[in-house]
C-alpha cells in the first residue's frame, strides 16, 4: 500500500515537474503577458476611479475594497482558464487518445495534477505583477492569517471544481471538432460569471442567481472575496461546504460523462 502510494506520487510528481519546463521555454511570452496585464490593470484602476467619482460606496463596497478585489481577481484569473478541451481536441486529432488511455496511470488524475501544477506555476509567475499591484496601484492585503487560510483552501477547492467541470465540457471534443469556438464561448462565460471583471455582489439579483448556478464563481469570486474582505472569514466553513458539494457532484459526473462519451471517439487516422 505504502509502496504503491510512493510510486504513484513519484509518477505524478514527474508530471507536475514537466509543466514549468514547458513554460520557461517561452520566456518572451511571459514578458508579453506581464506588460499586457499591467496595461489592463491600469485600465481597470482608472475605470473604477471614474465609477466612484460621485459615489462613496457601490453595493456596499468602497473604492479601496473594489480595487483590492479587481487587482486580486486579475492576478488570479489563470484559475478560470483551462486547457482541457484543447488537450482533448489535440488527442483526438492526433489519434493519441488511445495511447493515453493505455498508460499505467489514471488518465483524469494525471491531468488534474498537471492543471494544479500549472496553476501553482502561473501564480508564482504572477508575483512580479502582485508587486506592481502593491507598489503602483496600492493593493492592500489582509494581515490576518485566517483570511489567508480561508482563501487558500477555497482556491484549492475552486480549482478542482473547475477542473472537473471542464473535464465534462471537454468531452464535447469527442463529438465536435470545433474545439476553438466552444472554448471561446466558455471563456466568455467564465470571465463574466467567475467575477473576474467585476465583483458578483454588484450584479442584479437575477444575474447573481445565474452565477450561483454555474461553477465559475466557486474558483475565483469565492476565494478572492475572502482576501479583499467582501466575505468575512466567519463565513468560510459554509463556503467550503458548498464547494465540497460542488466538487463531489462534479467528480462523479465527470467520470460518468467521460466513460460514456469516450466510446464516441473516432480517431481520425492519427
Amino acid at each position, binding site marked *: 500500500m505504502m509502496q504503491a502510494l510512493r510510486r504513484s506520487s513519484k509518477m505524478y510528481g514527474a508530471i507536475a515537474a514537466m509543466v514549468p519546463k514547458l513554460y520557461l521555454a517561452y520566456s518572451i511570452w511571459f514578458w*508579453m503577458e506581464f*506588460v*499586457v496585464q499591467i496595461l489592463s490593470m491600469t485600465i481597470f484602476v*482608472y475605470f473604477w476611479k471614474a465609477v466612484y467619482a460621485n459615489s462613496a460606496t457601490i453595493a456596499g463596497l468602497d473604492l479601496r475594497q473594489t480595487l483590492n478585489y479587481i487587482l486580486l481577481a486579475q492576478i488570479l484569473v489563470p484559475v478560470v482558464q483551462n486547457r482541457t478541451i484543447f488537450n482533448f481536441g489535440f488527442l483526438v486529432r492526433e489519434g493519441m487518445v488511445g495511447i493515453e488511455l493505455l498508460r499505467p496511470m489514471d488518465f483524469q488524475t494525471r491531468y488534474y495534477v498537471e492543471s494544479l501544477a500549472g496553476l501553482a506555476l502561473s501564480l508564482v509567475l504572477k508575483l512580479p505583477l502582485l508587486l506592481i499591484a502593491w507598489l503602483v496601484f496600492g493593493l492592500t492585503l489582509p494581515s490576518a492569517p485566517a483570511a489567508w487560510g480561508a482563501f487558500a483552501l477555497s482556491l484549492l477547492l475552486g480549482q478542482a471544481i473547475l477542473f472537473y467541470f471542464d473535464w465534462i465540457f471537454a468531452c464535447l471534443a469527442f463529438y465536435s471538432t470545433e474545439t476553438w469556438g466552444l472554448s471561446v464561448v466558455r471563456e466568455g462565460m467564465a470571465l463574466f460569471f467567475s467575477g473576474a471583471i467585476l465583483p458578483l455582489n454588484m450584479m442584479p439579483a437575477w444575474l447573481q442567481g445565474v452565477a450561483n448556478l454555474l461553477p465559475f464563481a466557486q474558483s475565483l469570486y469565492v476565494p478572492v472575496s475572502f482576501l479583499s474582505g467582501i466575505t468575512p472569514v466567519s463565513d468560510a466553513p459554509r463556503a467550503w461546504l458548498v464547494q465540497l458539494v460542488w466538487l463531489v457532484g462534479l467528480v462523479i459526473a465527470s467520470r460518468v460523462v467521460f466513460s460514456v462519451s469516450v466510446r464516441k471517439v473516432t480517431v481520425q487516422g492519427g
Partner: protein
Amino acid sequence: MLRYLNLYGWFLMQRFKILMEYRMNFLIGASSTVFIQAAGLLAIWVVMGQIPTLQGWSFDEILLVYGLLTLAKSINHMFADNLWTIGWSYIRSGGFDRFLVRPIDPLFHLLAERFCHDGIGNFLVGAVLVARSSTALGIPWTPLNLFYVVVAVLSGGGIFIALNLITATSAFWIMDSIPLTQIIFNTNDFARFPLTIYNRGIQVVLTWLIPYGFASFYPASFLLGRDIGWLAWASPLVAAILLLISFRVWLFGLRHYSGTGS
C-alpha cells in the same frame, strides 16, 4: 489598382470556398467573438446601472465609443489578420519567399491570402452597438453623419492595420513578432472608454503616439456634439500618415529580409 481589386476578389472567393467546406466551423468562428464581447459589455451594463454617469458619459454614450472601436477593430480583424502570424507561419517556414517571386506586391499577397471570418462577428456587434446607441441618443442619421461614421470607421481600421504592420515588421529580424504586436494592440482597450477618465499622459499617448483615440473617442465626441475642436476631423489624416509610416517601415524590413534558410 483595378487589377489588385480584381485579384482581391479572386483571393476572397478562394478563401470562402475553403471556409464553406466547413460550414459549422465558419458559423462558430464568426459568432464566437460575440461571446467575449458580451462578457465585457455586460460588465459595463451592470456597473452603469449603479451610477448615473461615468464622469459625465451616459451608458449609451459609452456604448457609442465602444461600438466605434469595435467596428474599427473588426476591419483589421477581417482584412489584416495575417499580420499576426507572419513570423511563424510565413517567415520561419520559408513560405514568405513564395510571395517574393510572384508578380504582385508581397504585402498585398500576404493580406489577401487570408480573409478572417472571425472578424464578421465583431463587425456585427460594433454595427449593432453604434445603431442602438445613436438611436437612443437621438443622433440624426443625416447623410453627413453617415459619411462621417463610415470615414471614421475606415480611418480607425487603418490605424489598427498600420500599428499592426509596424510591429509585425519586426518579424523580419526576430521571427516571433506576436508578443510585440500583442502589447501595442492591447493598448486599444484603453480606447473603449472616454479618454477623459485617464490622466494627461495616457491621453497624450493614445492621441499622438498610439492613436487609438481617433478610432473611438474623438469621432464619438463629434457625433455627440462635444467640443473637441479640429480633432473631430483629424482621424483620416492620422490614419493616412500612420499608414504611410507603416508602409515605409515594412519596406525597410523587407529590404533586410534574408530568409531563415529553411
